[in-house]
C-alpha cells in the first residue's frame, strides 16, 4: 500500500497564502469601510485560518473534541468516565468546572497544543486509541457565573468536533441550543444525552432522546450521532461494567467511537471538512462585505450635481456682484483709469483732471475714515486702487452675509440629490465635508479678481468694429488736440503777421486754449457715447464671467467625487471577487482530494 498523499500538510501553505491575502485585504484602506460586525467576523475567520494552517502543518494533526453543555449535565463525569479516573473535578455543587481540562496523549508535546488550550488544566494519558485526539472539558454555558460562558466561547474556535452534552432536563435549553445553531456552520457535532436513567420513566410525553432527535431533524441533522449515556454509573463502577445499566445505554459505543471510530481517515476528513466550512464562511463573509456597484448611479449623480452646481454658481455670482454694488463708483473709476492709459498729451491731462473731479466723492470718502463710516462705507478702500485687497474685503463681506451658510447647505443638497439617485450618501459624506471645509473665501476672491481682470481686458481690448473704432478714436484723441492747438496758434500768428490784424484781444488769445479744449471735449463725449464704461454695462458681463468661473471651480472639486468613489468601489469589488475566487480554488482543490470517510452525520445539512 502506497503512502497516501499528505493532504492536510499540503493544505497548510495554501491556507497561509489565503490568510496573507485576507489580511492584506482587511488592512487596506477602503472607500466603503467595513461595518463593525463585518470586520469582527472577518477578523475572527482570519484568526481561524491562521490557527488551521498552524494545526495542519504537522505530521499527525490533532483532533480536538470539545464537550459543551449546561452546568450539571455531566460533562466532567463523562470525561472522567472516558479517562477511567477523576481527572476533572465533578461534584454536586453548581457550577463545578471553572477551568477547562485538556485530556491528551503523553506523546504529544504540550507546545503542540493550540495556545488557547495550553493555559487550561492539562491531563495526559497513554491510551493508544486516543493518540491523535485531544478531549477538552469546558465550563458550563448557563450558570450564574457568566465568566464560564465567556471561557467556553473563547475555546470553541479550537474545536474540530463539539460533543453536545445534554441531560434529561437540559437537552434543548435555549442558551445551549442557540450556541449549537451558531457553531454548527463551523464544526462537526455529535450528541450525548447523559443521565439516560432519568429519561426512562415510562410516563407521558415524548422520550427525551426522541424529542432531541426531532429537534435535530428540524435543524437538518437527519441521522445524528447520538449517544445515550449514564456517565456517573460508569465512573462509580471504576472501569468495570456497572451492574444495573438502564436499557439502551450507549457509553461503550461512545468510547468505541472515540477510540476506534475516529481513525486517521476520519480525522483527516473532519479536518478537511472543517477547512471547507471555514472557507465557505470566508467566501460568504467577503461576499457580504462586497461594496455595491455604483458606476451607473455615480454617472447619474454627476449629471444631477452639474445642474445643482450651476445654480449655486449663479446665485453666488449674484450675491458677489451685489456685494460689489456699493463700490460701483470705484469700479468705474478703476476702469476709466485703465482706459486712460493709452492717451497721451493734452487728452491725458484733461482726462486726469476730469476723472479726479468726477470721482472726488470716493476719494473724500476713502481718505477720511470718519466720513467713510458715517456715509455708509463698510470697506476701507485704499486711495491707491488695490484690486486684490478690495475684492478680498468684498468677498469677506459677502461670505459673512451669505456664502458661508450656503456652503454647508450646498453639501446637504448634494447629499440629498445623491440619495435620490440611489447613491448612498454615507459614502460621499467624508469627501464632500472635506471639500466644503476648503478655504472658499480665498477661491471666491480669486474668481472675482480673475473675472474683473477678464472684463477689464475685454473692455480695454475690444474686438471687431469696436477695436477699429477704439483705435481710430485713440489716434484722434492723441493727435487732434495737439493739431488743433498748433493750427489755432498758426492761424493766429498768420493773422497777426501776414494779414496784419493787430487786434490782440483776450478772447483771441484764449482761443489757443479754447479750440483744443472743445476738440478734447467732443472727443471725450464721443468716447463716452461709443465706448461706454458704466457699471450697468460692466455688471452683466462681470456676473456672467464670475458665474462661469465659480461654476468651473465648484465642478472641479465636487463633480468628480461620485465617480472616484464608484471607481474605488469597483476596484474593491474586483478585489473581493479575487479573494472569493482564491478561496474557491482552495476549496475545489480540497474537494477533489477528499477521501471517502463517513463523517456526514457529524454535520447535518
Amino acid at each position: 500500500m502506497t503512502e497516501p498523499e499528505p493532504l492536510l500538510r499540503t493544505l497548510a501553505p495554501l491556507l497561509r497564502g489565503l490568510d496573507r491575502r485576507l489580511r492584506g485585504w482587511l488592512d487596506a484602506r477602503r472607500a466603503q469601510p467595513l461595518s463593525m460586525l463585518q470586520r469582527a467576523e472577518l477578523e475572527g475567520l482570519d484568526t481561524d485560518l491562521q490557527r488551521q494552517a498552524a494545526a495542519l502543518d504537522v505530521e499527525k494533526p490533532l483532533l480536538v473534541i470539545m464537550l459543551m453543555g449546561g452546568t450539571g449535565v455531566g460533562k466532567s463525569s463523562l470525561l472522567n468516565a472516558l479517562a477511567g479516573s477523576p481527572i476533572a473535578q465533578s461534584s454536586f455543587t453548581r457550577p463545578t468546572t471553572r477551568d477547562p481540562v485538556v485530556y491528551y496523549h503523553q506523546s504529544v508535546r504540550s507546545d503542540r497544543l493550540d495556545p488557547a488550550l495550553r493555559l487550561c488544566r492539562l491531563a495526559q494519558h497513554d491510551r493508544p486509541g486516543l493518540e491523535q485526539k485531544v478531549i477538552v472539558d469546558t465550563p458550563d454555558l448557563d450558570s450564574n457565573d457568566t465568566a464560564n460562558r465567556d471561557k467556553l466561547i473563547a475555546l470553541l474556535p479550537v474545536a474540530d468536533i463539539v460533543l453536545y452534552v445534554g441531560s434529561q432536563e437540559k437537552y434543548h435549553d435555549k442558551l445551549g441550543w442557540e450556541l449549537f445553531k451558531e457553531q454548527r456552520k463551523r464544526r462537526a457535532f455529535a450528541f450525548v444525552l447523559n443521565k439516560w436513567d432519568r429519561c426512562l420513566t415510562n410516563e407521558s410525553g415524548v422520550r427525551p432522546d426522541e424529542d432531541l432527535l426531532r429537534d435535530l431533524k428540524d435543524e437538518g441533522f437527519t441521522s445524528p450521532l447520538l449517544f445515550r449515556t449514564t456517565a456517573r454509573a460508569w465512573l462509580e463502577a471504576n472501569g468495570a461494567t456497572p451492574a444495573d445499566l438502564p436499557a439502551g445505554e450507549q457509553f461503550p459505543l461512545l468510547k468505541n467511537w472515540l477510540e476506534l471510530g475516529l481513525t486517521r481517515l476520519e480525522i483527516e476528513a473532519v479536518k478537511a471538512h472543517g477547512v471547507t466550512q471555514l472557507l465557505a464562511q470566508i467566501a460568504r463573509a467577503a461576499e457580504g462585505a462586497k461594496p455595491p456597484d455604483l458606476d451607473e448611479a455615480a454617472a447619474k449623480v454627476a449629471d444631477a450635481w452639474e445642474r445643482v452646481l450651476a445654480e449655486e454658481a449663479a446665485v453666488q455670482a449674484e450675491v458677489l456682484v451685489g456685494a460689489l454694488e456699493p463700490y460701483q463708483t470705484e469700479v468705474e473709476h478703476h476702469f476709466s483709469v485703465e482706459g486712460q492709459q493709452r492717451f497721451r498729451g493734452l487728452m491725458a491731462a484733461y482726462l486726469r483732471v476730469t476723472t479726479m473731479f468726477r470721482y472726488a466723492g470716493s476719494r473724500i470718502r476713502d481718505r477720511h475714515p470718519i466720513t467713510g463710516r458715517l456715509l455708509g462705507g463698510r470697506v476701507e478702500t485704499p486711495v491707491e486702487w488695490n484690486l486684490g485687497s478690495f475684492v478680498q474685503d468684498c468677498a469677506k463681506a459677502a461670505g459673512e452675509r451669505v456664502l458661508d451658510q450656503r456652503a454647508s447647505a450646498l453639501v446637504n443638497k448634494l447629499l440629498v440629490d445623491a440619495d435620490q439617485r440611489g447613491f448612498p450618501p454615507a459614502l460621499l459624506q467624508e469627501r464632500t465635508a472635506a471639500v466644503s471645509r476648503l478655504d472658499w473665501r480665498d477661491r471666491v476672491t480669486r474668481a472675482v479678481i480673475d473675472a474683473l481682470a477678464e472684463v477689464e481686458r475685454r473692455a480695454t481690448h475690444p474686438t471687431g468694429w469696436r477695436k477699429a473704432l477704439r483705435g481710430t478714436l485713440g489716434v484722434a484723441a492723441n493727435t487732434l488736440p495737439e493739431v488743433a492747438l498748433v493750427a489755432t496758434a498758426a492761424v493766429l500768428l498768420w493773422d497777426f503777421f501776414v494779414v496784419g490784424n493787430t487786434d490782440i484781444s483776450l478772447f483771441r488769445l484764449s482761443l489757443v486754449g479754447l479750440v483744443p479744449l472743445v476738440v478734447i471735449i467732443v472727443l471725450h463725449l464721443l468716447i463716452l457715447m461709443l465706448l461706454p464704461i458704466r457699471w450697468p454695462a460692466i455688471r452683466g458681463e462681470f456676473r456672467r464671467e464670475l458665474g462661469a468661473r465659480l461654476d468651473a471651480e465648484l465642478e472641479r472639486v465636487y463633480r468628480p467625487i461620485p465617480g472616484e468613489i464608484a471607481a474605488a468601489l469597483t476596484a474593491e469589488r474586483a478585489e473581493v471577487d479575487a479573494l472569493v475566487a482564491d478561496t474557491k480554488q482552495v476549496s475545489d482543490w480540497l474537494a477533489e482530494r477528499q477521501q471517502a470517510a463517513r463523517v456526514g452525520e457529524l454535520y447535518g445539512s
Partner: protein
Amino acid sequence: MHVPDTRAAVGELAADLGWLEDHCRAQPGLAAHAGSLRLASALTRNVIGPFLEDQPARPLHVAVVGGAGAGKSTVVNFLCGSVVAEANPQAGYTRHPTAFLPAGGATLPGTIGFLGPMRRVSEEKPANLDEDVYQVRRLQPTAAADPLGEFVVWDCPDMTTWASTGYVARLMEVAALADVVVYVASDERYNDEVPTQFLHLAVKAGKAVVCVLTKMRESDAPAMVEHFQREVLGRLPPLPSGSIPAVPVVPFPQMPPGVRNDPAGAGAKYRVQLLNQILVQCESADAARKRTVSNAARYLATAGDGLLDVARRDLAEFDAWKGAVRVGRLDFEDRYRKEYLSGEQFRRFDRYREQLVELVELPGAGRMWGNVLWVLRAPYRWGRDTLTRLVVRPDTLNLSEKTVLDAALVGWLDGLRAEALRRAGSHPVWKAVAHGFDGPLAAEVRDRFQQAFRTFELKETDDLEATGRQLVAKLEGNPGLLYLLRGGKLTADIAVVGAVLVFTWVPSWYHFLLIPLGVSATHQTAELAARGATEAARLKVRSHREELVQATLTAPLAEWLAQWPATGGTAFEKLQQVLTRVPLLIRQLDEKVSAKMTA
C-alpha cells in the same frame, strides 16, 4: 369606589405596559426587558385590578415555576396531595398554565381582563397544548382535610428551553397573579442564570417565595441547600419595602416512583414540610392578599421609571432629531437676519420722515412764510444734495424677503434630510424621517410654510405701517408739543433774520446772504431731529421683524417638524403617549390602593 373609573385606569395601564412589551420584543436589544414589562402589566391586571374592584381575597394563588425538567409537575402533585399533573421526562413538556382548584367551593375571579389575553379552556387538554390558554381543573375531594383548601395551585410552563420564548409570557401572567411563588430548582439547575433571573423578578415584585430543591441524593441535600442559600439566595435583590427577603428552602431529594406518585402517603414527609412553609407565608387570606397587592403597587411605583428605561434610546434619538430641527431653525433665523434684515432699509420710512418735517411747518396762513423760507433754502439744498450724491455709497442690492426665506427654508429642509440620511441606519426615527422626505413631508412643510408666510406678510405690513403711523400720530396727538416745536422753529427763523438785521445794521447787499444760510441751518436741525426719530423707529421695526419671523414662521414650523415623527399614528406617537401616561396611571393606582388599604 368609582369602579368604572378604576377599571378604565387599570385597563389602560395594563394595555400601555403591554404595548411597551411588544415594542421591546420588536427590538433585538431590548427583548430581555419584555419579561419584566409583562410582569408589570400582569400585576396591574391580575392583582391590583381585582383588589380595587372589591373582589374577595379568597382563593389565594400558588404558582409553581422553574426551569425545564426541574420537577414542577411533581411539586404540583405534592401540593395537591395526589397525582393530578402529568410529570414526564420530556423537558419543556408543559406549554400553558393549569389551575388546580380545591375540591370545595373556591373559584377563579371573574373580573374582566383576568389573565389578560389568555383564554380559558374548560375541557381537559394535554399540558403541551402550545396556545394562549389556561386550563382549570377541580381536584377530587379526599377524605383527609385539605390544608390548601383556600388555594389555587398553578402548574406553569418553564422558561429555559429554546421553545420557551413562545410561552414565557404565559408564565409571567400566572406568576404575577400568585400570592406565593413556589420556585422549583433541580440539582442541575439551581445555579442557572435564566431561572435565577426569574427568581429575582419574583422577589422584586414582592411575591412570597418558597424554594424547592429537587433530585439530589438524600445525603447531599443539606450541603446543597446550604450552597443554594449562599450562592443564589444570598444575592437576591431587596424587597420593594427595602428589607432582605427571607426565602425558605425545602429539599425534595430524588424519589423512587413509588414515593413520587404517592404524595399523601409515602411522600407525606416532604409534602408536609412544603405545605408548612406555604402556610407560614399566608397566615390569613386577607393579610396575604393585601401583602400581594401592596407589594405589587409598590413594585410598580418603584420600578415604573426603570420599566420606561427601555424607551430611553428611542427618546434619546428623538431628542437628537429635535436638536437637529432646532439647529436648523437657528440657521434659518441667522440667514434671514444676515441676508435680508441687515441690508434692509425699509424705504417706506422716508415718507414718514418727510411727514414729520412737514408737521413742524406752520399751517394755514403761515404756509406763506414757509414757502418763502423754502425758496431761500434752495441753494443750500442743491449744494447738499449734490455733495451727498457724490459721497454716499449706493446701497447693497438687497435680496427680496421672499427669496431669502425660501432659500433658507430649502436649506433647513436639506440639512434635516441629509442628517436623516446620514443616521438612517442607526435608528428607526431617522429612517422614518428619511422616508418622510421621500414621501409627503417636504411638500407638507412647504404648504405650512406658505400658509405661515401669508400670515406673516399681513402682520409685517401692519407692523411697518403701524410703527410709521405711530411716529407721526404721536406728534399729531400731542398738540402741546407740536405747537411748541412749530413755535420754536418759527422763533428760531425770526431770530436768525432779526439777528442778521440787528448786528449788520445798516446792512449791505452781501449781508443779506446770511439770511438763507441761517434759515437753512435751523431747517437742517429740524430735519436731523426727524431723521433721528425715524432711525429709532426703523431699528425697532428691524428687531421686531426678527421676533415676528420667529413667532409666526420658524417657531410653529420647528415645533411641527420636531413632533413630526411622533404624529400620524406612528410608534413614536404611541410611545410618547405611553411614556407620559404610565407614570400618571401608576401614581393614580398606587394612591387608590393605599387609600383602600387604610380604609
